[in-house]
């Protein structure tokens, strides 16, 4: 350990912005509630006629930084089929949150990303030079989108048609 290395260490620690984990968790849970409201609205015709039922279950999540917390899992019943819509968390490098949709025939996922993002692969601005400050991409409002299956990488809008299609795929409908 040299003085120079220690100087760099002190510099790095001072340059580190403190993360407000409580705020991150609350924002994530608010986005999750907003998603569930949206899905209930997309399915309202079937829910009101009793052909699809919805219930919620509290599940435990544990994420680095945020720690342990509870979130709601949505469970859809469509006749004999059950579809679990399960939040996986928000602390992912690739997106701001992910929800897994698991049916009897497969799984899919919804991701929380910037409104204008069209690819499941994020853009990262990387420079081959030390020093300076990394450039940040401009922040955008976050929306839920449907991920296509690799090797396809585009994100589909969460529309009624796309969500119905997704439900049919995961239930082999």
């Amino acid at each position: 350990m040299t003085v120079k290395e220690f100087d760099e260490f002190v510099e790095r620690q001072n340059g580190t912005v403190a993360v407000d984990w409580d705020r991150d968790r609350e924002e994530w849970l608010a986005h999750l509630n907003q998603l569930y409201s949206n899905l209930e609205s997309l399915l309202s015709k079937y829910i009101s006629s009793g052909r699809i039922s919805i219930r919620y279950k509290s599940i435990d999540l544990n994420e680095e930084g945020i720690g342990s917390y509870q979130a709601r899992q949505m469970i859809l019943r469509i006749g004999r089929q059950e579809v679990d819509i399960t939040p996986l968390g928000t602390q992912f490098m690739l997106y701001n949150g992910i929800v897994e949709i698991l049916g009897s025939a497969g799984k899919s996922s919804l991701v929380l990303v910037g409104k204008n993002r069209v690819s499941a692969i994020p853009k990262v601005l990387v420079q081959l030079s030390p020093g300076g400050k990394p450039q940040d991409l401009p922040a955008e409002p976050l929306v839920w989108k449907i991920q296509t299956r690799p090797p396809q990488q585009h994100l589909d809008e969460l529309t009624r048609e796309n969500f119905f299609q997704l439900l049919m795929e995961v239930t082999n409908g």
Partner: protein
Amino acid sequence: MGESPGTPSLFTALGWVAQYHYDAVESLRRYFNPDSMGSPARFDGSHAVRLDARPVDYFEETGLRSSLAILTWIEAVFQLDYQYRSRRNGPKDSLSKAFRAIRKSGKRITRLDPELFDAWTKHTLGVNALIGDLRNAFKYRNWLAHGRYWTPKLGRDYDFEYLYRLAETVYRNLPLCDLDEASGG
């Protein structure tokens, strides 16, 4: 860059991992779907044993194996980039210089974590979040590769699809050397 038959580019090879994974999952699904070919059975040496149970564990197992394949691909990409940059007449940027210093230090094996990841975070800008996720993902890789005999503390779940996207994020965003040239492909 050209691609001769039988030697896929590294990126093509990544796509093949995904294709293989989904074909394996679909094969299992059909095999255990009584509507498609009747109830499957396995011959145990003297009897045919019916396999009626829903094979959730088979799907999970396939996901774990495919995840390991993706993580080994990521490791190969970083190691090839290291080999290329650390050549005597390699590039002049500070990352390549750091790699040459590592090579000069005489270590027989250069590890992805900490040596290569440390050099990437120290000598490039904008990679911290990505390298942080990769460090965590490689704890998962170590668990997969060493017999899964402990409970990994990861702070998040990893699955095949996430790791595939992480691999493609590395490939599309990091200023890696010409990997196919480095691999002799």
